[in-house]
Each structure stands twice: as C-alpha cells, then as structure tokens.
C-alpha cells in the first residue's frame, strides 16, 4: 500500500485529472444505478396507482424527469470519464517514464546489487508497462465501487434497510473477497506461466538462431518437439489461470441477479411496500455493474504491486560514481595517468579486475592495450570514463584526480568508441548530434568524411535523416563503426578511447578505419589515443603496447621489442605475426 501511495504521490501534479476521472466514474455508476432503480420503482408504483384508479393524481414528473436525466447523465458521464482517465494516464505515464529515466541514468552502466545494467533495464521496462494500468484499471474502479456501495447503502437505509446486508454483502464477497482470493491462488499458477513462457521463448530463439547447426546435424525436429512441449506447458498454465478467472466470472454473473432476488426478497420479507422492494432489487442490479472492473483490478493487483515495488527500489540505489558537489574546473592539459589502481567489480566478484595498474597516456600518445579476454583491458576504459570508481590508487587527467573532476567533467575530454559501436535507434543525424548538439551541417559532413563514412551515408535512402539502429538496421557492422567513429571525431575531445574498434571487419575495411584515425591524430599533435585490440594491424601503429594478463600489466614496450621477448605478448600473437 505504501508503495502504491508513493506512485500516487508521483502523480501529484496531475491530481486534478485523476480526481476528475474518479468523480466522473462515480457519477456514471450512480446514474446507472439511479436509472434502473428509479425505473423499477416508477413502473411498480404506477401499476399500483393505476390499479387503484389514481393514475391522474400520480406525480410522474419527478420519475420521468429523473429517468431521462439519469439516462443522459450516464452517457455523458461515461464519455467524459473515459477522456479524463485517459488524459490522466498518459500524463502520469510520461511522468513515470521520466522518473525512471532520471533514476536509472546515473546507475548505468555500473548497475547495482549484482544486477548487470542490462538486466536491470529490461526489468524496469516491463515494470513500467505493468504500471500502465495502475490508475486506469486499479484506482478508478476501486473508488467508484466504494462510492457506489456507499450510495446504495444510503438509499437502501431509507427505502428498505433489510436489503442492505444481502445486497452489500454479496457485492463485497463477489467483487472484493473472491478476486483477492483468486489472485492469491493464482500466484503460483502465474509464476509457472511466466516460467513456461520463457521456456517457450528460449526454444523459439534456439530454433531460429541455431538453425544452421540444427539442420547440419538433423536436430531441428528435436528442437521442434521441445518447442511444442514448452508451448503445450505454457498453454496448460494459462488454462489453470483462466480456470481461476472463470470462477470469478461465473460467481459475478450469478451474484448480480442473485442479489436482485435477495434484495427483493429481504425487502419484501421485512414488509416493505412493493415499489420499494422493486427499488431494492434494481439497486443491487445496477451496483453490480461496478463489480466486473473490480474483479479485473483484483486479478492485476499482485502483478502491479510487485512491479511498483521493484521500481521503487530504483530510488534507493546509489550510483557507483557520484558527481562531486563542487567539481574542480577542467585542467588545460589532458595527459592520463593511472597510479597503482586496483579494482574489483561490485556484486561479490571474487577476482579483482585490476591489480596495481600504473601507466601514462601522455598528450600525443598512442598506446595499445592487449591481453586475453577477461584480463582487464575494458575495465581500464570503464574506470577512466567514470562508470566505476577504483578501489585503490588514483586516476589523473591533466594532473587532477578524476574523482574531483567528476564523471561528466572527465567525459568532456574523452571520446569513446565502444566494442559494439552502439547507435541509438534514430536518424544518422541525431546519432551524430549526440556528441555535439550544436554542430552545423558542414561539421557533420566533415566528421563523416574524416571517418570515411560520408560516401555510404550519402548513398543511404534519406542521407543524414535515414533511420538506423535496432529498428532501422540499414547499416552493416563496419558502417555502424564508422558512424560511431565520426561521432567521436565530432565531439572533438582530445583523448580517444577505442575498445576493439575493428573487431569483425575484414582487413580492407580495417585499414580504411585506421587511416581515418591516423589522419585525425596527425591533424593535432596533442591528440592522444588508447586502443584495446588483439589485431596485429593496429599494434603496428601504436607507439607503446601494454600487455595485460590476469588483471595486471605484465609487459610494456613497442610491438617489435615485445615480439622479441618470450612472454605473454608472444603467446597472444605468435601465430598471427
């Protein structure tokens, strides 16, 4: 409840929309109850008056006016309510997304509590979707059911008090108790459905991504039958869940008419006059219109609550590297120095990622980092970027401790081209502008030229405005990498960090990439580069090579000198050079 209250407080700026929606929902329900019960009362009372020959003196103005008023009120109320609640939902959803974005941004990429950042983010995405319905499907139905029941109680207490217990009792039982009970019973079924669904997903992914191997060994039929078994398991889980929901539906379908009969019998039994007994029955009938959304809300309650809890946990997470309260101004120089840096990844990793690492990347330096995968190369870049903080030792940029400069200050001097050459799923232009939002058209093309990317960007269907990334994927791996390089050039930071930039490129594309990099470096002798690689072609261009093995720098020197020694470098490259 506390968690839900927290998310409601997040919606504070839009509270008037929420209140409006809730009030309209209540009015609509009351108009519905009023329409049916007034009609029932009117007909019954009219019959009695007509039979007694009192038709002419019957005051029908109140009844016929009321009936028409309720009919109009109900229609308009429902229409306005749907507009108001949707307006509120969209506003709050936008707020919720931005709230999540703000909380998540400083946590990435370090993540927290042993969760990898990717896991955290994909979970967050699902949870935000689950909270979509919090206001629309949980809060509004609950409020209108509450007020409907109150209004019904009030009218019944005046008209036929004996009917209160059976009508409200049945309503609470079928609209509140049963759904919550079913939600509890459905929890384990729900979990097994989730597990079966992800089994099915895994088999489907195996079939599609592993098709070549499966066909080669004639094993596709085995995976097909595993997929069939997983799919069957999934569907039987859904059947169990549907069975529980079915019970709700059936009880609800019976409870409406049953409470009509019960309300009528209780009122008539207590000696209420016929029109009021009819009124009691029809009130019960009208009230049950509010029960169906309530049942749905009950079914979703658990899922919504656990999503809300997980999202709220974001609030308590602290970033791995905090911005200092008053960061030092950036120094003019940009030489990088690691001094006895030690680091172990958070989350209970036993093995240190870096042990006593010291090196310098002077202005104008060209340093290559080599080593087997897992030896700690990428950790050096992650620490320098301020994604993580070292456990011991210091990292300096232009002589100042980067802890005092703060991550965003430090990053202003660094350009990173990552192993995966991440591109946002948007246009080429927006991807480039990420590095420098104010860049002119000329500067964009100049950076693309420098990265040897201008020709193929020009050939793209919409040039700079072509949509790329996840959804677009109009560019190949090599092209993506050159766009990422152009972006790094555009940023015009003096220190370039490259993490396996030519991985998976053929030698011609690799050579083009390196020429582009060389030209950029030669244009300003103060520019420096730190490059992680295991490709011999890149080593040849480095002035100094650092060899890493098991979290330590074990060899330093030029590639030629290292090749002559008998050490880790030779084990890595013996077969390639």
């Amino acid at each position, binding site marked *: 409840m506390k968690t839900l209250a927290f998310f409601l407080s997040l919606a504070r700026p839009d509270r008037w929309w929420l209140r409006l929606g809730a009030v309209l929902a209540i009015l609509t329900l009351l108009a*519905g109850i009023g*329409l049916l019960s*007034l009609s*029932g009362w009117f*007909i019954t009372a*009219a*019959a009695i008056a007509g039979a007694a020959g009192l038709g002419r003196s*019957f005051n029908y103005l109140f009844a*016929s006016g009321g*009936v028409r008023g*309720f*009919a109009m009120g109900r*229609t308009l109320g*429902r229409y306005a309510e749907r*507009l108001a609640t*949707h307006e509120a939902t969209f506003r709050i959803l*936008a707020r919720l*997304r*931005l709230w999540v*974005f703000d909380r998540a*941004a400083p946590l990435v990429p370090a993540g927290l509590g042993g969760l990898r950042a990717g896991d955290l*983010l994909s979970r967050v995405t699902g949870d935000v979707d689950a909270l979509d319905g919090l206001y629309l499907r949980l809060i509004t139905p609950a409020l209108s059911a509450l007020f409907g029941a109150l209004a019904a109680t009030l009218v019944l207490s005046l008209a036929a008090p004996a009917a209160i217990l059976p009508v409200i009792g049945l309503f609470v039982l079928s609209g509140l108790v049963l759904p919550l009970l079913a939600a509890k019973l459905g929890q384990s079924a729900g979990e097994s459905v989730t597990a079966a669904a992800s089994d*099915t997903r895994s*088999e*489907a*992914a*195996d079939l*599609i991504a592993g098709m*070549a*191997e499966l*066909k*080669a060994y*004639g*094993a596709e*039929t*085995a995976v*097909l039958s595993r*997929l*069939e078994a997983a799919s069957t398991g999934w*569907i039987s889980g859904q059947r169990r869940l*549907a069975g529980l929901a079915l019970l709700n539906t*059936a009880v609800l*379908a019976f409870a409406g008419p049953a409470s*009509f*009969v019960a309300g*009528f019998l209780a009122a008539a039994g207590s000696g209420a006059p016929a029109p009021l*007994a009819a009124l009691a029955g029809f009130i019960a009938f009208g009230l049950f219109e509010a029960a169906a959304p309530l049942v749905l809300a009950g079914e979703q309650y658990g899922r919504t609550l656990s999503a809300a809890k997980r999202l709220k946990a974001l609030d308590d997470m602290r970033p791995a590297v905090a911005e200092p309260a008053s960061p030092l101004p950036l120094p003019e120089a940009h030489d990088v120095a690691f001094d006895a840096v030690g680091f172990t990844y958070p989350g209970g990793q036993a093995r240190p990622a870096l042990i006593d690492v010291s090196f310098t990347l002077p202005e104008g330096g060209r340093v290559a980092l080599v080593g*087997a*995968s897992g030896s700690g190369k990428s950790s050096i870049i992650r620490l320098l970027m301020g*994604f993580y903080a070292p456990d011991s030792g210091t990292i300096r940029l232009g002589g100042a401790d980067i802890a005092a400069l703060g991550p965003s200050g430090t*990053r202003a001097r660094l350009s990173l081209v*990552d192993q995966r050459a*991440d591109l*946002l799923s948007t246009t080429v232009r927006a991807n480039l502008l*990420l590095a420098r*939002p104010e860049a002119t058209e000329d500067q964009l093309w100049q950076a693309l030229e420098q990265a040897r990317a201008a020709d193929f960007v020009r050939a793209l269907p919409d040039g700079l405005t072509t949509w790329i990334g996840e959804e677009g994927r109009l560019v190949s791996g090599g092209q993506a990498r050159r766009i990422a390089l152009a972006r790094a050039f555009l940023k015009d930071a003096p220190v370039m960090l490259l993490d396996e930039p030519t991985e998976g490129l053929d030698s011609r*594309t690799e050579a083009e990439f390196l020429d582009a990099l060389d030209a950029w470096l030669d244009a300003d002798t103060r520019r420096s580069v730190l490059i992680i690689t295991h490709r011999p072609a890149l080593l040849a261009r480095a002035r100094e090579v650092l060899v890493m093995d098991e979290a330590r720098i074990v060899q330093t020197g030029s590639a030629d000198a290292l090749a002559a020694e008998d050490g880790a470098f030779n*084990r*890595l490259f013996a*077969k390639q050079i």
Partner: protein
Amino acid sequence: MSNPALSREDRRALGALLTGWGQAGRGPSLLASACGIAQYALFIGFAGFAASAIAALVAGEPFVMAALLAALFAFVRAGAQALETRAGFEAAARVKAHVRMETARALAVKGPAFTERLETGAAGSALTDAVEKLEGYFGRYRPLMPVIAGAPILMVAAAFTQSWVVGLLFIITAPLLPLFMAIVGGAAAAASKDQIAVLARLAGRFNDRLQSLALLNAFNAAQREREGLAAASEDFRQRTMKVLRLAFLSSAILEFFAALSVAAIAIYVGFSLLGELPFDAGETVTLREGLFVLILAPEFYMPLRRLSAAYHDRADAEAAADTLRPLLRNVESGAAHPGIGPFDMCPKITLSGVSCTYEDGRKGLKPVTLSIPAGKISVVWGPSGSGKSTLLKILMGFAPLSSGEVRVDGALMTAPLAGRAGWIGQNPRLFHGSLRDNITLHDPSIPGEMIERAVAEAGVADFLVHLSDGLDTPLGERGFGLSGGQIQRVALARALARDMKLVLMDEPSAHLDGEAEARFLDALLSNRDGRTILIATHSPAVRAIADEVFDIAELQAGHEQGGAS
C-alpha cells in the same frame, strides 16, 4: 510492428489467413457461440420470473417461488456464461498451438538461408508474442459473431410477446447502432491504428534510450535525451487524445442507446400503467410485462457492447497475422532428407561452375570450380562479401545451388550434405540445456563414450572442471555463459561426437582473440586425421594450418576467363 496502412488487398489476405487458422479451434468456438446464445435465452427466463415475483408481491400473491426460480435461471445462466468463456479459451488455445507450430515448422523447412536474415529477437517474439495476440480474436471476437446475430433475435421475440411497442423499439435501435458506430468508428479506427503504431514507437524509443544509457552517459547526453523523451510523450498525448475524443464517441452511442431505451421503456410502461399515455397503443401492458422488458432492455445491447470492447482484438490479430505471414509464405513442402547417415570415409568434393543467386536476386557466389581433397584441411580465402561462406552454405543446402554441379567422391550430389557433415559457424549457438545436450543436440542415440571422447579431443575438458555440474551444467540464455573460444570448442565437440568425416567451418575464429584462436586450432589439428575439413576464413592464423588454400577471388576470375575463352 505492423504496417498501419494495410491495403484492402492485404487485409483480405490477412482475413483469409485468420479464417484458415480458425479451423483449428472450430469445435470449441462453435460451443462458445452456442453457450453465448443460450445465456441470453436463459436471461429471458430470469427476467420473466423476476418480473413475476414483483408483480405477485404487488398483487398480494405468493412470490417466493417465482423469485427462487429467477435465481435458478440466473444460476444456470452463470454456468452457460462460464462455459462460453472456457470454450472460447479452448478455441484460442488450439489456434495458438497450431499457428505456433506451423510457423516453427515453416521456419525449419526454410532453413538458415531464411532465418539468418531475421533478427532473432523479432522472429522469436513472432513465435511467442505475436501468436499470443491471436488469443482475444479467436477466444472472444470470433465466437461472439454468431451471438450478435442470434441473441438479439431471441430477445426481440421475447419483447414482442409482451409489448409490440417495446419490440419495435428494440428492432429500430438494433440496426441503427452498428450503423452509427460504423460512421463514427470508421474514422476513429483508422486513426487509432496509426496511434497503435505511434504508441509502439514511443515505448520503443523509451526502451531504446534506457538500454543505451551507457552510450548517453559517455557523451554526457542523458539530460538532453530526457528532454527529448518528455517532448515526445507530450506530443503523443495530445495526438492520442484528439483521436480518442472521436473513438470514444462510438461506445458513447451504444451507451446512449442502452440508457435511452431503458428510460423510454420505463416511461412508456409507467404511463401506460397509469393510463396516461398521450396516444392509443392498442395494447395494455401489465406490471409483469413492463418489468420483464425493463430488465431485458440493458441486456439487449450487451452483445454489441461486448463486440465494441473486443474491437482491438481484431486489430491485434491482424497485426499478428501481418507479422507471421512472411514467415509462412512460400514454404516448399520440405523434401524429406534421404536417410543417409554421416560419411564412413572422408570424402573428396568437386565443384564445377557452382554459383548461387538468392531468391531476392542477391548474388551469393559467382561461378567457381575447385576440388576439395579428401583427408586434408582446405581453406577458402577472401575478404568478407566475396562468397566464401556461401560456398559452404551451398554444400549444406543453406543457400541455393543456382548453376553448376557438385560431386562427392565422383558421384553427383543429389541432396545437400546437411545431416552428413559437421558444421561450425561464426557464432555457434549455445542452446539452453545442459552441456551434454549442447553436444548431442538432444540425440539420445549418441553413446556416452563418444561424448566423453569428443569432450576430451575438442578441448572442452580443459574448462569442464570449472563447471559446477560437469556435463550436466545448464548453459545458454538463462544458464552458464561460456567465452567465445569455449563455445567454438563445444561446436567442435558436436562434430566429433558424431565422428563426422566431413567438417565445414564458416569463419570459426572471427570472434576469437589470438590466444583463443590458437587453442581452437590446436584442438582442430589434433583431430584432423581421417577428416576432410573445409574452412572459410580471412584469418592468417587459420590459413597457416591449411594444406590447401583456395583464393575465392582468383577462382572466380579464373572461371570468368575460362568461360570467355
């Protein structure tokens, strides 16, 4: 997502596809419809007895029996309603199971030539999420169609037996409703389909930016992107609300008619009972009859209201069919592989004038002629895009053989070599399951000692000691991850466990660092005896262990000259 602007022709094709799928759940779907009609018939019974009970009370007659009978009808009706829902679920479940497997089998027949061009995530979610989206359509929407036609007729007939005025009111409003709804809904539906696409794009943008936070942070751009997201959400809200104002009108009309007819019936019946009708209806309505039609009225519009609530079920199903259709199209009836097992002796393979053009016109390989010697390691060498991988795929049947011929030990190759040759790709899949499953690929006929030998010879044993449960350690997406080099050794073990005499490798070391590549090649070298090994690569280290190197560019050039002369 689906294309929001589906042409009329596309929609017809999608409709036909959906109808075809519906056959799988025909029985339960019919049962659901029958129960759907029955529950409205039973409701007529409830309304009748409930009205009798009140009328009896007014008349001072015994009313308890009628009230209890009304409750009994309500009870049976609830049962029919439950059965309707249950049968609908069953219909949807059968269709989903059928479509999922039909699509999976179609993919298996189309093979890697087709699947490698799909995004794994998207295709995987087609088999799961898109199939799930069929549920509403087959479980609710379709079974409801006969109910919409049948139930109102029953209720109109019941109303006519009580009061022709009320019956007429039902008859007049019933066809008006769909008409109004169509007029208002038509414009809104088109717009709301666009809206679904916009919503998906907005959610997609949020998710993409959330996943790319590391990149945004690297450029200190998270704050700027946040502002972009806020503006996009605001824009989305405004546009959506404009559409919804129109879209909600169609359900408001339903709502209005339901409320209006209750009000009209109440006023008509009430005035008629008072004897104060301003016109002569030519009938006298009793209290019982009046109450009966009053209870009936809200329910009369219920089927239509249910349909309008299920409207997006159809849109969902069409979107799903649109996603699945390309996966199902042009499936040739999968030619069953002849039951030839792996080679007993390492084969010699001769290709003459072999070329490949894909169905969509892409050139996979220009004609080449070469002879791959038995028992040797041969390397096909060339830059990426030159067709060296395609050459291997043609042999396996993963790419079409457009011209030329392949001979295996001198005999013409009539069926691709899939099932007879080991295959190691650039990024072998680590299937979810145990390490053992990953080596046998669920083939129980591979004897245990063959697995153990393969584990030792492929170098899997080197890291086996680090795995908690040895061969039974779970791997794959939700299990233990292996490094690229380790995965390649598992892939090698797959081939060795079956003692494949022919092994094809497509850039097996493209994603390995120097040391991992060296280890993999060591394992390969110690298993080379008695095997024909063909490797497509641009790695100098792999080239260095080859007995025979075929430069693909030279071969193609040579073939062109040969053809010209």
